[in-house]
């Protein structure tokens, strides 16, 4: 596939690569950020949801009269009221074997998970709305809850009648001679893994404000979404609001991590309420709701086996990944993407494994729907692959570095058995570099010395390759549907300043700064002269979402393509004014200069002024539009790679695990801003440490969620934060703007495996090998006690 919008111009890196401080920081540091809850519209009402207290039940009665009568309550809606306008939102994954579900905006006859919205109370304040919710009485007739994904797939009651056999997704592929690989294997290393149910847990919960003006039919919707253009699309597709009169606005957003990359019933309900009640309506999710209902993540049961030949080279893999999907597909990611990606994409990783038997399945259960969380599908897949590599290292008595070097792909381009082509990568170098960073021999000596004193440290390794810069080509390469492109507008004004608008929102990743760096290098203007607007409104641009490590590559590509149009004009004008060949003009340090002719230059400001005010300076046929909007979608898939090594210590009296140090290698091609890249690594790794050691959403046997406060759902705090040593490798992409690849998910993708491996290494004298996360202190203590 080759479209013009896949071509990206070249760029000289000047500001790119620098540790530019973020322009957003002073605003955020002084309390001037405007997050969703900070926005107050005149006359706004507050919504609060009555949520199911049962995991699976028939609703026999909802009585709302008392709530409606409460002073300050303006409206109470139940499922019937919402269904008049919208039957629900449809979710599925565009792969073979996926079956769709429709999630009602408010449950009608049946509730299917604890926390499912049943009614909404709208009142003059959130306090009164909550008082109203207390007065709504719902009678439930219990149905049997379906709670275990693997037994659910074998039959029994259904969690959601739309999927009578509980199969939401089932499929797979056999590639190469798997039988042969396993029959001829010198060793088979296998295990069943469970990776726990997580909450992405952004510090800012979800929220929506809707405001509707019937005179113009204009709807404005504020939401901290990672996909505002998609939300806007749904406002028309599901609710029939006129597309031209819909605007989705994205305020400052306190983290998303994938959780805010869905469409939620609440986002569809608020616009209806605002329209019908003729007043703005606001809903700010509270933390209990967030833990209960804002999509759960990652939970899977995975059987996996690798065949190794007598040289300890992996020759085949079998995997069956089963997702515990919850009651519905949460669009657009669905409960399918997690096990699908784990089975279909990750089992081969950075290794040359010619044969693969891949099975994916997702079961509907009476739990909160599973959604995306940073590194969706990749984390669990990387966990099982890398953990078995370390298991294999022990079995073959090789170092964790050596076992990986036996199988690692060394030559590019590389096509894996799934047919995915990797253009380049520093897969071997990553392993070598990590070995150097940890000083492996010294580590083993220290480990032995400490063990003699009754202290137990361990080293764990985990390397990864991740698809980044999610694109149409990426989807195609993986047999996934979906079309992606983003646009950017670059506009230069008479004083030479530049306003850039991109279609991607930012949740703290610093896109405004990195995009300014790209423009600075393209147009030679100083950073202070550049303002970047990151999808604050859907009025401009188009964006397919801040997901899948897309930000830098996709927005960067669109921004570069658009600024190149401006650049070409500035160069033409400068060439005319300086009587030089356009090919000899460069834009640098605020001026157009003639290469090789010192002193021959004109400032960008003068050029811009001339475009707007001085026709006499123009060359022939000059078009003075200093504004360009262009799209970008890379021609080919892009992959970043890297790895982490971790040293942990386990405490013999408690089984507590402490991460002593993290070593990270990241290759995301050309680095635009190392501060930002390192920030993404550290943040993701600590989330990964949380996933490996602390975080766990727990359901009891009746399907009640036990972990509904932060006192029970434990996230890493500062005392869990290890020191980092980060090393950058730079293998630029041959076809993206400046060679940028995406990143942002790798920390969470690969850290849990490193932690698990390190713990297993610390316990290696005990004979116990753990294959679950989170690793509980209890499991560790039990292992140590033998």
């Amino acid at each position: 596939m080759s479209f013009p919008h896949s071509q990206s111009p070249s760029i000289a890196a000047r500001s790119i690569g620098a540790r530019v401080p973020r322009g957003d920081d002073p605003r955020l540091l002084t309390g001037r950020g405007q997050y969703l809850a900070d926005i107050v519209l005149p006359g706004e009402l507050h919504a609060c949801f009555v949520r199911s207290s049962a995991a699976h039940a028939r609703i026999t009665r909802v009585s709302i009269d008392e709530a409606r009568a409460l002073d300050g309550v303006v409206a109470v809606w139940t499922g019937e009221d919402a269904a008049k306008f919208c039957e629900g939102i449809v979710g599925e994954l565009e792969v073979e074997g996926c079956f769709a579900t429709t999630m009602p905006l408010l449950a009608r006859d049946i509730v299917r998970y604890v926390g499912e919205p049943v009614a909404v109370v709208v009142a003059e304040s959130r306090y009164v709305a909550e008082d109203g919710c207390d007065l709504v009485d719902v009678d439930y007739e219990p149905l049997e809850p379906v709670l275990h994904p693997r037994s659910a797939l074998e039959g029994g009651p259904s969690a959601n009648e739309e999927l009578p056999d509980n199969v939401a997704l089932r499929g797979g592929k056999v590639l190469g001679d798997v039988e042969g690989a396993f029959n001829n294997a010198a060793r088979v290393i296998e295990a069943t893994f469970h990776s726990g149910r997580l909450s992405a847990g952004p510090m800012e919960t979800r929220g929506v404000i809707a405001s509707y003006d019937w005179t113009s039919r204009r709807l404005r919707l504020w939401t901290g979404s990672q996909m505002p253009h998609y939300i806007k699309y749904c406002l028309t597709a599901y609710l029939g609001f006129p597309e031209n009169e819909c605007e989705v606005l994205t305020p400052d957003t306190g983290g998303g991590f994938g959780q805010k990359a869905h469409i939620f019933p609440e986002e569809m309900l608020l616009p209806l309420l605002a329209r019908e009640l003729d007043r703005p309506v606001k809903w700010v999710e509270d933390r209990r709701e967030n833990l209960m209902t804002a999509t759960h993540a990652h939970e899977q049961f995975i059987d996996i086996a690798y065949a190794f030949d007598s040289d300890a080279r992996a020759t085949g893999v079998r995997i069956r990944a089963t997702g515990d999907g919850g009651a519905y597909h949460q669009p657009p990611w669905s409960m399918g993407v997690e096990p699908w990606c784990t089975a279909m994409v990750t089992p081969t990783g950075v290794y040359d494994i010619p044969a693969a038997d891949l099975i994916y399945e997702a079961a509907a259960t009476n739990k909160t729907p599973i959604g995306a969380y940073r590194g969706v599908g990749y984390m669990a897949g990387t966990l099982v692959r890398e953990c078995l590599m370390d298991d294999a290292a022990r079995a073959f008595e090789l170092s964790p570095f050596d076992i990986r070097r036996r199988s690692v792909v060394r030559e590019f381009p590389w096509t894996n058995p799934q047919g995915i082509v990797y253009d380049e990568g520093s897969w071997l170098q990553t392993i070598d570099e990590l070995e150097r960073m940890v000083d492996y021999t010294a580590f083993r000596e220290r480990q032995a010395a400490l063990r003699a004193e009754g202290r137990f440290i361990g080293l764990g390794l985990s390397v990864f390759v991740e698809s980044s810069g999610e694109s149409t080509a990426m989807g195609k390469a993986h047999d996934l549907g979906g079309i992606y492109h983003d646009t950017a507008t670059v506009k230069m004004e008479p004083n030479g300043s530049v306003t850039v608008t991109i279609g991607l929102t930012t949740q703290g990743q610093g896109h405004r700064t990195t995009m300014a760096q790209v423009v600075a290098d393209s147009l030679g203007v100083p950073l202070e002269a550049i303002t970047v607007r990151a999808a604050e409104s859907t009025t401009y641009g188009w964006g397919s979402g801040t997901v899948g490590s897309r930000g830098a590559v996709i927005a960067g590509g669109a921004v570069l393509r658009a600024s190149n149009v401006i650049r070409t004009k500035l160069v033409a004008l400068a060439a005319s004014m300086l009587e030089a060949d356009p090919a000899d003009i460069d834009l640098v340090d605020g001026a157009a200069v003639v290469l090789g002719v010192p002193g021959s230059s004109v400032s960008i400001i003068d050029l811009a002024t001339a475009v707007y005010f001085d026709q006499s300076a123009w060359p022939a046929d000059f078009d003075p539009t200093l504004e360009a909007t262009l799209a970008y979608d890379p021609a080919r898939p892009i992959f970043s790679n890297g790895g982490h090594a971790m040293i942990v210590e386990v405490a013999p009296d408690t089984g507590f695990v402490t991460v002593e140090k993290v070593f990270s290698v990241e290759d995301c091609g050309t680095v635009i801003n190392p501060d930002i890249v390192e920030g993404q690594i550290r943040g993701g790794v600590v989330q990964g440490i949380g996933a490996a050691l602390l975080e766990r959403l727990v359901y009891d046997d009746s399907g009640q969620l036990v972990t509904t406060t932060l006192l029970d759902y434990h996230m890493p705090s500062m005392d869990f934060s290890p020191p980092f040593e980060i090393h950058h490798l730079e293998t630029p992409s041959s076809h993206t703007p400046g060679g940028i690849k995406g990143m942002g998910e790798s920390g969470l993708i690969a850290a849990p495996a490193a932690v698990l491996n390190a713990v297993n290494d610390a316990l290696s004298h005990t004979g116990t090998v753990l294959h679950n996360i989170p690793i509980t202190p209890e499991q560790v203590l039990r292992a140590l006690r033998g």
Partner: protein
Amino acid sequence: MTQPSEHVSVQVEVNGRRYQRSVMARLTLSDFLRDELGLTGTKVGCEHGVCGACTVLIDNEPARSCLMLTVQANGKQIRTVESLASGREMSPLQACFQKHHALQCGFCTAGFLMSATALLEEGQPTREDIVETLSGHYCRCTGYSPIIDAVEEAAAKESS
């Protein structure tokens, strides 16, 4: 005898300014600061005392504003993140946060800044003191180590 009432009158000094208001007794201090006074720099992340986003200084000591009723702050001096910059200059602590990339989304930041401000005002904190105090705050973005570095540098600046 004092009569119980659903509404109370409060007088507080916030960032050097006196306010007198009549509020619902059940109104939390965080909601009061944000909704009544428009000081939205203070964030609310959990409303049950764990995340630390809402931390403000009450008579110079850090406290969760989500776990205080407004009326409990009657007669007290409150400082919020809006008080930290002076004139048009960020405080040294704020500048160190920027320098060390100690914030990403910024939602947790006000809470960290307020606890760290109290810590710096009390003396010269060690790295351990910093971790001990700031472990009472969640940050989901940064992985924390840049925050530790930022506060450590601010402490070093203060002492020099």
